[in-house]
């Protein structure tokens, strides 16, 4: 569910949604979610001063609270 949430938001914002790839490495307490986007979209997903990435992390944190987990979002170049 965390993976799908990140994927949905990322795909909504980028120019090349077909190039959005999200993988989730599930740990016992912590999940690492890796987000990959097209090179051209990298700036869009990070945003000015990392604002978009921060907003994405805030939403993700709330969602992971719901399932009593911790989630880390990594944006991969």
């Amino acid at each position: 569910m965390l993976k799908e949430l990140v994927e949905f938001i990322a795909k909504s914002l980028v120019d090349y949604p077909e190039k959005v790839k999200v993988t989730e490495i599930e740990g016992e307490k912590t999940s690492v979610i890796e987000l990959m986007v097209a090179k051209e979209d990298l700036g869009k997903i990070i945003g000015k001063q990392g604002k978009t990435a921060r907003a994405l992390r805030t939403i993700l944190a709330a969602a992971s609270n719901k399932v009593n987990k911790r989630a880390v979002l990594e944006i991969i170049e």
Partner: protein
Amino acid sequence: MIEGKVFEGKSIEEALEIASKELNIPLKDIKYEIVEEGAKGFLGVFSKKAKIKVILGEGETNQVKEKINELLENELKFDLKENEETKFVEEKENVNDDEVIEKIKDFIREIFGFFDISINIEVRKRRNNSINLSIFTKGAQIPAKNLEEFILALQFLVNKLANVKLKSGLFFNVDINEFMAKKIDRLKNLAIEISKKVRKEGKSYTLKPMMPQDRRIIHLALKNNKFVKTESKGDGDKKRIIISPSQSKMR
């Protein structure tokens, strides 16, 4: 009169000076008629620009005539371009506004879907292309540690979608269960309470550090209050507002 080019200025004198510069004619040699006298207006609100029309007589050089033709042509081009652009923007906005709002509502619903929270969204259009989206959750609470941070994050993503992706030119204010509305009310009340104290005691009060959007509410709430003035002091995002007696009161 053969040809005329209109020049504008705050006064007839200024319009003449502009004309003299543009056309390269000495001030005293310009022949002109007054199109509009111009008016100073009240506090600059109803001011009207002075307009003169420069008249070219037989005696003018061809160079000056050419210059005037050139200026007139540029003016025409500019008018055309401006009209085209305005029309384009209007059409774009008319077609897309409601469509964009629907897309944004779907986006928000989908996100809440991941939280298993069903919602109602109330839409209120305001002036200046700004739109209020009031989200009401049915029963369930949002599992965010800091609801305000969550709302601002959602608002940020919504506006990113509306403007970077959909290029709508609309600004969305997002609220969940009236959290922001209540907060704004609290800040307004605080501003009024403190301003009363400041007025009564005649000394300044310094508020706790606040984010820019919160300070804005306080500044606006006391903007028309004659007895106090507000200013922000400090560094970075979180500045403190100082509410102090206004000068006129002290003297």
